[in-house]
């Protein structure tokens, strides 16, 4: 089974001359990652809007309770790591971040029960992405199992850290770069963030594919035992990774805005 990633071509023919050089913006996007990304965003926004549909400062409903628990959890994390006043505007970003990574990590673990349906859609390669390949179900894919997504999140964290540093320390923020080790630090931090998340989720999903395709025919039922164990572990890993990414973002911002840096 040749498992080629489907890419959509974008910005074809967008070309211009810049300082005498011919520049073409034509490129590709990872179709499956993008679709899963949108699915995650929709699921996550639905969850968030359902949770805050009937907001009350009195007795909250079950859904609102969950949302409040998440908010309190992140608030406490931030307050533990830094001066909360400095991070007041950060809360919404961190909440969106942890929710996105969590839902993204989880969605790859949901069995692709609609594969027979998707297999019939011969449009933009959907039958290849979500249908059957060589008689096997193609599982769903976490957006975070794509390096582009994790690097994007890490870049956002980097931008956040630098802008928070500049906001609170003005020009003093750049003084630390007189020591070249700090330059490496600022390259290494987002890289480790991106590759840690990618590695964990990608490995988890790869093993799911392996278990699904390991045994042929009726003996595939034997795969239930390792599958249950591995999916259980992947849920744990997915939760932990979303937590780790958020905590490290908070820690890096705290480092950048702390006075004694």
């Amino acid at each position, binding site marked *: *089974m*040749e*498992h*080629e*990633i489907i*890419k959509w071509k*974008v*910005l074809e023919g967008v070309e211009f001359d810049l300082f005498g050089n011919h520049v073409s913006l034509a*490129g*590709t*996007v*990872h179709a499956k*990652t*993008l679709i899963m*990304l*949108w699915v995650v*965003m929709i699921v*996550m*926004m639905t969850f*968030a*809007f359902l*949770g*805050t549909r009937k*907001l*009350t*400062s*009195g007795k909250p409903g079950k859904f609102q309770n969950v*949302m*409040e628990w998440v*908010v*309190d959890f992140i608030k406490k994390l931030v307050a533990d790591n830094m001066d909360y006043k400095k991070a007041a505007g950060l*809360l*919404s*970003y961190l*909440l*969106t971040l942890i929710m*996105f990574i969590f839902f993204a990590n989880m969605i790859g673990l949901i069995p692709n029960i609609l594969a027979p349906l998707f297999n019939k859609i011969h449009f933009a390669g959907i039958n290849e992405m979500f249908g059957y390949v060589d008689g096997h179900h193609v599982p769903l894919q976490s*957006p975070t*199992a*794509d*390096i*582009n*997504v994790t*690097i*994007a*999140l890490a*870049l*956002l964290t980097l931008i956040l850290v630098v802008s928070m540093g500049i906001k609170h320390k003005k020009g003093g923020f750049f003084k630390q770069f007189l020591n070249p080790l700090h330059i490496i630090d600022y390259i290494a931090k987002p890289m480790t963030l991106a590759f840690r998340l990618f590695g964990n989720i*990608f*490995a988890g999903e*790869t*093993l799911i*594919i*392996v278990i699904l*395709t*390991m045994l042929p025919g009726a003996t595939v039922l034997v795969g239930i035992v390792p599958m249950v164990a591995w999916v259980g572990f992947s849920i744990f890993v997915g939760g932990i990774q979303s937590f780790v990414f958020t905590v490290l973002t908070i820690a890096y911002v705290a480092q950048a805005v702390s006075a004694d840096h």
Partner: protein
Amino acid sequence: MLYTMSALLLTADVAEDVAAAGSAGTLDIDYTLIVMIATFLLVYWILARFVWKPLTNMMEKRRTNIEDMLSQAENDRQEAERIRLEYQEELRRAHQEAQVLIEKATKAAEVRTDEIMEQARLDAEKTKQTAFAQIETERVRALAEIQAQVADISVAVAEKILRKNLDASAQKDMIDQFIYEVGDRPC
């Protein structure tokens, strides 16, 4: 390492699939990254505006509500304590006043008792005096009456004697004796 492991564990066929999945583009960096950043920022903006902000505002409102209620409860408690002390003080004062009143009443009653007793004694004395005086008057009156009657009787006796025996000298002693005896009789 994963690839090595899977290669050891699985058939060569599956191991190839796994290797292919890794090499066939998941690690390529392309416009997905830009789209991801844009999508994430958009979702962040929407959620921040329509979900997180109302939610945190509401939680803040609840916090202030609870704070208000707690301070209100504390105020009420203090007010109740104040009223309790006030009532206690009032009760104490009422007890004291009642005690004073009782003492005063007792004293007044004693005085009144003495007065009544004295009055009764005086009344009794007066009654006794009046009775004595009345008795004396009665005695005098009775004596006078008796004397008058004796005179009448004497006259009657004298009359009888005179009618029977005109011998005055013979009867004189007897009459004198009679008068003497009458005078000695107690009234």
